[in-house]
């Protein structure tokens, strides 16, 4: 057999060059990550102080003050976005993974929400602007939905507690009693809903916090939906069959078997979606806008960290730039921390099983 020495050597050299280049590419990726992290750390540390979290901004151009308004505003917006986005995402994910499993409808929703995950977030901002900011004087649907879900969650917790007290502590358990308890829970939920609604939601007067929360929820829904769907389909079908064989209804199977088995996975998805929306800026630019004063009223423009960073970094004052870096630092630490925790949960959960 004749082996062409030169040819073999040429192939080996070519391979060596190609593989070295790929190692260089990996090094380049690490280099960018290190560069960005280090740079945010270096600039951000300068601006970190207690006042950053406890004081409102000073007038433009005057050094001092903090970003309390933006920190609290960000928390408000992300909180209500979570309240709207997570229940819808989980419910929709449950429907397409359980009741509609394998149907065309489920596939369509699944593919469309995969696309929605990557839809430009600024377009979401313009869409929400058109329905929740521009029609001044209309009812704020975003606020109503948020309050609706909030009161539903409060009512469910309340119902759980009285149910526990009556059934487990007082050891009473009759059909009639359970029915009354459910009725009380529903009435309580309605009461909470109406009280909060009159207190918290006004007609649209322009940019408002509810619109910001709704825009972030729009981005959250497909993320939560897809994770829920994936996690529910990981639960073995035999587990459900075992429960069906005992005579449980599908709702009971979902509530007590499937959700329990998939809880960690869904929780991780929720955490990751929160971290994803906390860094979003574009959808907030024309919805919650910005506010240089501290406010808890979601019917007004609400400051958020990311929009504040945008305005401060583009602004002319050196002090603003330092604040923008400090805020970026806080956001980045928050997001990286959350991402690492979520990864650790996944690792811990799926390595042990």
């Amino acid at each position, binding site marked *: 057999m004749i082996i062409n020495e030169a040819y073999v050597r040429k*192939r*080996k050299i070519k*391979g060596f060059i*190609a*593989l070295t*280049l*790929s190692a260089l*590419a*990996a090094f*380049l*990726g*690490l280099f*960018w*990550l290190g560069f*960005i992290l280090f740079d*945010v750390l270096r*600039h951000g540390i300068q601006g970190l102080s207690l006042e950053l979290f406890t004081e409102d901004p000073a007038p433009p151009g005057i050094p001092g003050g903090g970003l309390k308004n933006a920190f609290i505003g960000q928390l408000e917006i992300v909180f209500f976005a979570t309240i709207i986005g997570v229940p*819808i995402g989980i*419910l*929709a994910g*449950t*429907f*397409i993974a359980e009741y509609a499993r394998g149907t065309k409808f489920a596939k*369509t*929703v699944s593919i*469309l*929400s*995969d*696309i*929605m995950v*990557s*839809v*430009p*977030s*600024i*377009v979401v901002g*313009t*869409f929400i602007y*058109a329905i929740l900011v*521009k029609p001044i004087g209309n009812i704020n649907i975003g606020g109503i939905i948020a309050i609706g879900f909030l009161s539903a969650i409060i009512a469910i917790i309340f119902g759980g507690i009285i149910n526990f007290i009556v059934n487990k502590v007082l050891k009473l358990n009759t059909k009639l009693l359970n029915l009354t308890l459910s009725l009380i829970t529903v009435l309580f939920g309605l009461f909470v809903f109406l009280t909060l609604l009159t207190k918290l939601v006004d007609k649209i007067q322009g940019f408002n916090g509810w619109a910001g929360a709704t825009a972030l929820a729009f981005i959250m829904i497909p993320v939560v*939906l897809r994770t829920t769907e994936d996690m529910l389909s990981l639960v073995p079908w035999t587990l459900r069959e075992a429960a069906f064989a005992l005579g449980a*209804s*599908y*709702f009971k199977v979902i509530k007590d078997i499937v959700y329990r088995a998939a809880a960690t996975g869904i929780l991780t998805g929720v955490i990751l979606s929160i971290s994803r929306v906390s*860094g979003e*800026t*574009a959808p907030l*630019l*024309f919805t919650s806008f910005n506010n240089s004063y501290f406010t808890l009223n979601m019917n007004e423009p609400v400051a958020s960290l*990311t929009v504040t960073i*945008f305005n401060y*970094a583009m602004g002319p004052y050196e002090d603003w*730039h330092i604040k*923008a*870096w400090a805020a*970026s630092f806080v*956001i*980045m630490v928050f*997001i990286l921390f959350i*991402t690492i925790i979520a990864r650790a949960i996944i690792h811990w959960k799926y390595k042990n099983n």
Partner: protein
Amino acid sequence: MKRKLPLSDIIFGIVSFSASFLVLTLIFSTILILYNESSLAIHRFGILNFIFTENWDPVNEIFGAAAPLYGTFITTVLSLLFAIPVALGIAIFLTEVSPHFLKSPIGVAIEMLAAIPSIIYGMWGLFTLAPIMAEYVEPALQKTLGQIPLIGKLFEGEPQGIDLFTASVVLSIMIVPFIASIARDSLNLTPNIMKESAYALGATKWDVIKDIMIPYAKLGIYGGIVLALGRALGETMAVAFVLGNNHQITLSLFEAAATITVTLANEFTEADTDIYLSSLFYLALILFVLSFVILAIAKFFLLKAERGYSR
């Protein structure tokens, strides 16, 4: 025997169905509402006329999308050009080259790159990368590539750092992790038996990667690239800082420009006339349709790849 559905199932089924139906309506109502809001501009400027008009003049109320479309196109293409080789290199390194103990930490680090919010890329691009670009990289490019007759036109002008080139670099760093992680997953799915047969025939490692793994993972890699294309198209904050907002089509990469997203971010809240706002909604509609189509293509590739692997 027909079983009666329990009430709890009916209620929960209806509630969860309406949630999933809402997801469907969200997408379609986005298109409808954007179309409705932009109808004024669509009637005034038409479709082709709007796309090919460079003029963006709020005072005389003449609006055309040519400049932002051009900016979007150039930044997207350039960032893909920069990102694809690096991302494929990373994917190959992670699947074949790296020693085992390095695989997981490097993989996590690359995913961290995807978790950093885009506004931080923007800040970093404006305050750190742009000065470096203006001082070192761009003059160096002008001295070397800028001297070549035709290509030189791309590198003309005073390097400011706030330009198409810097924006594309920032964007490319952002999309590397998307392509890399999908490409890695696809490469990893190559059956060992195929690789082993190639090695048995005397192939080198690079031969195996080039002739066995990459052709096998082709569809997945395409999907990843098209997905990244969709992401790059709609990215706002990372480019808003480093692009200026200049509604002119310039051949040089060292000039400020505008993309659809940057125009929206800078001008949406300032739009004072109906036709101005409507034109901005028109831009948003174009962006939405473009990215929807591109993402659908990406999804098509990825689904096809998935089906191919599971066979």
